[in-house]
């Protein structure tokens, strides 16, 4: 009897040990990565670095236009994707749940989420740049990023809608509210946290992408604030790529770490905002 208890305790300890080791590996990797970027990048950060344009292919100057380009592209992408994601989720949720088309749409969104980002870039190059002859355009880049963000934002919104307890809909329907009124008064307010979270996670993913926009929306140097929809911009990921190619130069390498740190801070900022929005809005909507 006593032996059996000891064996059970030993098994439990081993199991807990394996779990702790998994946690340590995951957290350790993240801390090592972020720590390295922080330690190596902090030296490059200064007001001048943040607010000056890049010079000599990034070896000197700052990353002002890169930050601007990245933010412009992802914010426009978000503006394009959010209405589309809400519309798709609502259609799927309110009208299409039990149909085979609904099932197909849901599976397509999951599949779209798993497509490698370079594929989006190639699609943009073939369809927009070559076929529609748009040239290198930051707006085309935003559209491609929007397509990339679409599954994340849509699925997050849809899941938030599905999670609304059925009793809310029944109570609203029992008050004589029509389907559209239920959507406006119950579904959308209560899934708002999902829309915000999904959009911010989508933004966090999109802002760090290089491959989909490299051929269609960005230039490595000589760009400033775009004056039309069909001009290129420079973004932080493509700038880091460019600097990494000159890594034999210590100054370029230093700036690459600095730009990486800013990119990490931007991505972390969006992720933290998403976390904050989820905790605040979930509590408010579904208390």
């Amino acid at each position, binding site marked *: 009897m006593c032996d059996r208890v000891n064996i059970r305790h030993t098994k439990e300890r081993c199991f807990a040990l394996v779990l702790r080791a998994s946690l340590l590996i995951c957290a350790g990797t993240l801390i090592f990565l972020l720590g390295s970027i922080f330690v190596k990048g902090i030296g490059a950060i200064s007001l001048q670095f943040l607010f000056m344009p890049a010079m000599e292919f990034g070896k000197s100057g700052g990353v002002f236009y890169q930050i601007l380009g990245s933010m412009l592209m992802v914010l426009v992408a978000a503006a394009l994707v959010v209405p589309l994601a809400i519309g798709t989720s609502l259609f799927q949720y309110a009208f299409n749940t039990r149909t085979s088309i609904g099932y197909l749409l849901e599976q397509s969104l999951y599949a779209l989420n798993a497509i490698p980002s370079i594929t989006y870039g190639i699609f943009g190059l073939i369809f927009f740049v070559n076929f529609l002859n748009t040239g290198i355009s930051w707006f085309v880049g935003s559209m491609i990023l929007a397509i990339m963000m679409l599954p994340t934002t849509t699925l997050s919104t849809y899941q938030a809608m599905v999670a609304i307890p059925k009793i809310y809909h*029944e*109570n609203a329907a029992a008050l004589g509210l029509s389907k559209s009124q239920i959507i406006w008064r119950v579904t959308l307010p209560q899934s708002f946290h999902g829309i915000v979270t999904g959009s911010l996670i989508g933004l966090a993913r999109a802002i760090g992408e290089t491959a989909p926009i490299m051929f269609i929306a960005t230039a490595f140097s000589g760009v400033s604030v775009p004056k039309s929809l069909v001009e290129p911009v420079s973004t932080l990921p493509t700038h880091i790529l460019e600097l990494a190619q000159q890594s034999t130069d210590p100054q370029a390498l230093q700036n690459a770490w600095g730009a990486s740190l800013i990119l990490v801070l931007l991505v972390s900022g969006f992720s933290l905002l998403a976390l904050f929005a989820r905790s605040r809005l979930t509590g408010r909507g579904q208390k």
Partner: protein
Amino acid sequence: MNIPNLLLVSSNQSSDVDVQSHSIRLDGFSAYYGKNCIVSDINLKLPIKGVTCLVGPSGAGKSTILRWLNRINEETESASFSGTVKVLGRDIMSGYPDVTELRRRVGMVFQQPCVFPCSIYDNILMGLRTQKLSKAQARDIVEHGLKLASLWDEVSNRLEGRADSLSLGQQQRLCLARALVLEPDVLLLDEPTASIDPISSHAIEELVISLGRKISIVMVTHNIGQAKRISDHVVFLCDGKIVEQGTRAHMFSPRCSAKTKTYITEDFCDC
């Protein structure tokens, strides 16, 4: 939009109700979830006014019947019915092409209090948002609804406060007030006191008795004592069929059937 006056003057039952002798009529009604028949071949006539309690063991089909009376069961996957259901003289399917009209005339309060995550004020007006109300009208309606549900004294100083901060009993009375401001001709109550404390339960019972003098109330309850206190008419269901129905005096007297007597006295059904 008039202020709800259910307890003050005669109810707003419309002309088609007046010419009917029954608020609800079920003929050969059977209800299904998928292929499972939950209630079969029910014939039932409920009066224009008064409180009708549906009693019986769990799974008897009481809530299923109730949920078809305002077609709320349409929201449930695989739910269907056969037979005829007439509410206020009109068939619930062909007579109410716009289901929202049926639901406005047939209010419903569910077992679990469910308030929307907004203010008490907005909760009361949730069903009236399509109507253009002045601020004063809206305020009057909210006050009257809350007074009807005996909640005004408790919440009058925090109407803009969140409805989900109320106690469960208060939330249930808020749900009742929310349904009453629509001035329904029929009110469906699905075990409205099942999840609240005895004091709140008593307040709701008092309210149901008062309302029953003006409109038709159909209430599902497992509480035999409650049915005895508030009902005018009792329908005893078991295993998807009506075992017996009659006035309260009949159903709670020695003249009722042996099965009813067993259920009422021992809370047991051997159907």
